[in-house]
Every structure is written in C-alpha cells, then in structure tokens.
C-alpha cells in the first residue's frame, strides 16, 4: 500500500464513512451490527484499494452491497421489535425514530435496485449529482430528474402504511 492509497482511504472515510454508517444502520437496525459492517466495508476498501478504477461512489456501493449481502446470508435480518426496545427503556423519541426507520426501510425495499442505489448514494452517501452520474453512467441533470421521480414513488410507498394505520384506528 502506497502513501497515496493511504491518503485516498482516509479521504474516502472522511467523505463517505458517516453516510455508509447511516445506510447500514437503516438496513440492519442495530448500532453494533452497523458498526461492524461499516468497519468491514472499509477493511475491504483497504484490501482492494489497488483495484479501484472509475467512479469511487459506485465502487464503494458495490463493496457495501457485498458486505450487506454477506451479513444477511450469514444471519437472517431480524430488526429489534418495538416492544423489546420499549422494555429496554428506550426513550419515546428513539422509538419514533426507529419506527420511521423501519417504515423507510420497508419503502426502500420496494424500490427497484437502481432506485435504491440512487437514493442511497444521494441521501446517505451524500454524493453529488456529478459523482452519481459518473457511477451510473448518466448525465448529472438526468440524475436530478431521476432523484425527483424516485422521491415521488417513495413518498407514495411511505403513505401506504400510514393510510393503513388510519383505517385501523
């Protein structure tokens, strides 16, 4: 590993580390697991930095997906049920956040793979339209249009459970 590689990895961590952590936390719903998987993502970055070519966000996304798939293969995804969290004495605000996350996760799961990637890169990684365009092979303005379209779909999907709650009450 060269000094340039080291610098590049440090920059990647500074730029995308928190975003990757947020996305993983949303996916696994457990901070300790999310920390472990985020660490694995960056350990994979260290191992494969010499293979990195092209758009870096696309490359990071591929590593993240691989690590998440590995995790879900090894261990069935079991989000912490709300009543268990409540019994652990979690404050009400945290419970609300957890519920929002679960709804968001469920809605994201219903999106096509490309749309999931787009939302993740834009809102979790914090990648710019230009970076996303390089990763996806689109134009930057096309990215904006697609983000807009995906958000509309996501909003519809997020309203569905709320509507169901309203009918139940």
């Amino acid at each position: 590993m060269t000094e340039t590689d080291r610098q590049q990895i440090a920059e990647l961590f500074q730029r995308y580390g928190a975003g990757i952590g947020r996305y993983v936390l949303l996916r696994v719903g457990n901070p300790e697991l999310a920390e472990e998987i985020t660490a694995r993502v960056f350990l994979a970055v260290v191992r494969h930095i010499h293979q990195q070519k092209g758009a870096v966000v696309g490359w990071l996304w591929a590593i993240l997906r691989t690590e998440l798939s590995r995790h879900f293969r090894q261990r069935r995804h079991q989000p912490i049920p709300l009543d268990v969290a409540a019994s652990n004495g979690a404050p009400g605000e945290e419970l609300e956040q957890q519920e929002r996350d679960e709804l968001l996760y469920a809605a994201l799961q219903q999106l096509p793979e490309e749309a999931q990637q787009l939302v993740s890169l834009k809102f979790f990684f914090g990648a710019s339209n230009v970076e996303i365009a390089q990763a996806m092979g689109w134009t930057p303005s096309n990215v904006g249009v697609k983000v807009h379209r995906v958000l509309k779909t996501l909003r519809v999907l997020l309203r569905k459970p709320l509507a169901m709650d309203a009918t139940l009450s």
Partner: protein
Amino acid sequence: MIKHDDLMQDWPSDPENEELARLAGQLADSPGLPGDAMSRVEARLEKAMARHEQPRAWRRVAFGLSMAAAILIAIASFAYYRATDTDRPRTRLIQANAPSTPIDDRVSIAIQEPVPSTPSGRGVVRLDEYRSLYMD
C-alpha cells in the same frame, strides 16, 4: 450534512417539490452511527492500513539486504580473483626471460609409393550366369 439546494439540484419544476424536498431532507438527516462507533471504525481502519504497510516495509528491508549481499559477493569475488591473479606476472616474467630463438617443430613423414589396383578376373555383373533373366 447535505445542503438543501444540493438535494433539489436539477429537479424539474413541480408543485409538489416542497413536499418532496422535506422528504429528501428527512432522508438526508436520518440518524447515523454514534461518534464513538465511527471512531472505533476509524481505529480499525488505521490498524488495517498499518498491517498492509508492513509487507512493504519488509520488502524494502529484503531489497536492502539483497543489495548488500550482492555488493559483498562482488567485493569478495574481486578480492579472490585479485589474489589468484598473482601467477600471471610471473608467467609473463618467464616468457620475457625465454630465449628468442624460434621453435623448430618438424615431423618427418614417409610416403609410400601408390600400389596399382589389380583387376579381378570376374566382372562385377556375372552376365553369363544370369543370362536367362534377360534373354527371350
């Protein structure tokens, strides 16, 4: 943290944009890993990078050692040939002291007179014996 304008970059004009921007903001502001968790991840990352640098350091040491060994072998070889080369001046001295008369190296050879070959009484092909083969 992503700026509000960045979230809405290149969006087409739409009356629902404000609402969509709120959703985009919620997504962008979703909670992340705690700071201490990220610090632990960073520490593991640093450790992994240091581990990956070790082989490089070993390669450098190995290269230095092999270069030193090559230089030592070259010096030893030079010294050895220099030591064994002391015979050469002596040889040259002997040659210098040798008489300058030319070496007469003659060998006498006796050449015999050529013996004429005696023709044999029989021909190479015995025509008479095998006449039946070609006679009608």
